[in-house]
C-alpha cells in the first residue's frame, strides 16, 4: 500500500537556520502520526512545507500519489491537503457556518463567471455544502453556535471550528498543528473523538502536539524532531522512554 502522505529527503533552510534536514516520512491511510520535539524543532515548518507556504530547497512531497512540488498553496489544498493552524486563523468577521462554507476544496462561489452564469448551480452546491457543514458541526456538538460569530465563541469551540473548517476539504491528508493547545473539558474529548473517526475513515493524519497524553492516546507512532532533523521514530511509548528525548525536552 502506498502512503497517502509521502516526504522524501525534504530539505529547507532559512539562511543558516535549518528547519528540515533530509526529512523522509510516510503516513498511510488510517494512521495518526505524532510529531514531537522541542520548540523550534521544525514541526510547524514541516506543515508549512507540505501545505506550500514556502517551497522546499530539495526533496519531494506527494499526497495520494500526486507530487506537490512547485504547486501554490491553493492547488495543494485542492489535491486534498487540509491543515489547521496553531493560532486558528479563523475568518473573524464571519459566522461559524460561513467559515465552513468557504472552505471546501472546490468552491464555485469564488469564480465570477460561475456567479454570473451559473447562479442556479451555485445555489444547489451551496445548499449541499450547508448540509455537509451542519453534519460536521453536529458531530462536534456545535450546531447551536452555527450562526454565531467566530469571535464570540469560546477558545475550545474556536479550535474545533478550525478543525471543522479543515474537514470541509474532505481530503486524504489532515495536518493538525497543536489542536489541543489550551483546550480542555468537553472540547478535548470531542477533538479526540473526531480525530479518531477521521483516521478510521481512511485519512492520513499528522499531529503536532505538546500534550503528551493526547499523543499517547491517539497516535499509532510518532517522530521525534530536533533542529530540523528526525532523531528517532517508533511507537509513542518507546519514544517517550527514550533518553535522547528526555535530554532535549528537559535540557539536562
Amino acid at each position, binding site marked *: 500500500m502506498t502512503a497517502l502522505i509521502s516526504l522524501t529527503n525534504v530539505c529547507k533552510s532559512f539562511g543558516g537556520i535549518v528547519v528540515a534536514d533530509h526529512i523522509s516520512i510516510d503516513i498511510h491511510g488510517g494512521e495518526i502520526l505524532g510529531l514531537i520535539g522541542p520548540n523550534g524543532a521544525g514541526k510547524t515548518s514541516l506543515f508549512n512545507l507540505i*501545505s*506550500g*507556504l514556502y517551497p522546499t530547497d530539495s526533496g519531494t512531497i506527494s499526497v495520494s500519489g500526486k507530487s506537490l512540488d512547485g504547486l*501554490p*498553496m*491553493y*492547488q495543494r*489544498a*485542492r489535491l486534498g491537503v*487540509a*491543515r489547521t*493552524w496553531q493560532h486558528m*486563523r*479563523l*475568518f*473573524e*468577521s*464571519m459566522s461559524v457556518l*460561513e*467559515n465552513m*462554507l*468557504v*472552505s*471546501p*476544496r*472546490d*468552491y*464555485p*462561489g*469564488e*469564480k*465570477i463567471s460561475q*456567479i454570473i452564469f451559473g447562479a442556479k448551480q*451555485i445555489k444547489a452546491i*451551496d445548499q449541499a455544502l450547508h448540509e455537509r457543514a451542519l453534519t460536521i458541526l453536529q458531530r462536534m456538538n456545535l450546531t447551536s453556535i452555527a450562526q454565531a*460569530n467566530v*469571535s*464570540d465563541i469560546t477558545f475550545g469551540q474556536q479550535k474545533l471550528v478550525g478543525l471543522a*473548517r*479543515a474537514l*470541509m*476539504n474532505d481530503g486524504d491528508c489532515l495536518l493538525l498543528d497543536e489542536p489541543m493547545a489550551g483546550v480542555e473539558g468537553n472540547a478535548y474529548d470531542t477533538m479526540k473523538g473526531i480525530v479518531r473517526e477521521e483516521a478510521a475513515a481512511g485519512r492520513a493524519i499528522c499531529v503536532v502536539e505538546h500534550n503528551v497524553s493526547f499523543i499517547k492516546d491517539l497516535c499509532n507512532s510518532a517522530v521525534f524532531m530536533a533542529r530540523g532533523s528526525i532523531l528517532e521514530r517508533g511507537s509513542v511509548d518507546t519514544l517517550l522512554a527514550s533518553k535522547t528525548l528526555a535530554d532535549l525536552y528537559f535540557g539536562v
Partner: protein
Amino acid sequence: MEYLVSLAVLIGIYVILSSSFNLIIGFGGLISIAHPIFFALGAYTTGLLAIHCGIHPLLAVLAGGTVAFFASMMLSLPSLRISGDYLLITSIGFQLGLLEVIKHLSFTGGASGLGNIPNVVDGSSRSTVFAVVSCVVASAVVLIIRWLLTGPYGRVISAMRDDELAFSALGRNAMMIKLALFAIGSGFAGIAGGIYAYYYQYISPDQFEILQSAMLLTMVVVGGMGSHLGPVVGAVLLLLLPQAISFMNLPPSVMAPLQGVIFTTLVIIFLFWRPQGLIAPAQRQAQRKP
C-alpha cells in the same frame, strides 16, 4: 435649473467612481489609489474612438470600460503579489507614470488635452439626457456591486480580507479574486470616463491627477468604506460641499486651494472620530472586535 442638471451628471459619474473604488479598496482591501487613471483610460479611449472612428456612443463607452478593465491588469498582475503599502506605492507610480505618457503623446492631445469630442446629444435637453444616463448607469453599478457581494462571492471576499493565508490554505485562489475585483472596479471607472468624455467633450491629463485620487478616497472614507450606500452618500456630499462654498463668493485665490484643504481635513476628522464613515458597513464588519 441647467446648473442643477449638470450637477446631477457629475453626481452620477462620481457615484460610479466611488462605488467601484470602494469595491477595490473597501471590499477587496486592496490599497491602490490609482483609480483616476482607469477613469482617464476610459475617457481617452471613448474620446479617441468618437473623434476618429465615429462609432456608436454606446460602443465607445463600452470600449472605454473594456480598455480600463484590461489595463488594470498591467498594474495588478505584477503588483498584487505584493500587497499593502507596496501596492499603494506601485499604484501611485502607475498613475503618475501613465499620465506622463498621455501628456507626451501627440494623438492624445498632450498636456493641453483632447478636445473636439463630437456632441452626441443636441438641443436644449442635452444635460437632462446625460443626467438620466449617468444616474441610471450609476444605479446599475451600485446594484451590480451589491448583487455580486451578497451571497457566495461576498463571503469569499470577506474571508480573504480576514485572513489571506488561511484562505489560500483552504484552496481559494486569492490572486484570481483580487485580479477580478481590480478589473471589475477599473472597468466601471472606465465607463464613467466614457460618459465624462461625451458630456464635457474635452478631457485633459490634469483632471486625473492625485487630487482626483484624494477626492475619491475622501468620498469612500467619509461615506463609509465597505458599505454599499456609503460611497453614494460620500460622492453626493463631496460634490455638493464645494458648490455650497462657491456661493460664499470667496476670491479665486482662496477658493482654489480650499478644495484640497477641505478634503484632507474631512479625511483626518473622519479617521479620528468616525473611521467607519457616515454609513457603517452592514453586519459582518460591524461585528468585528477591535
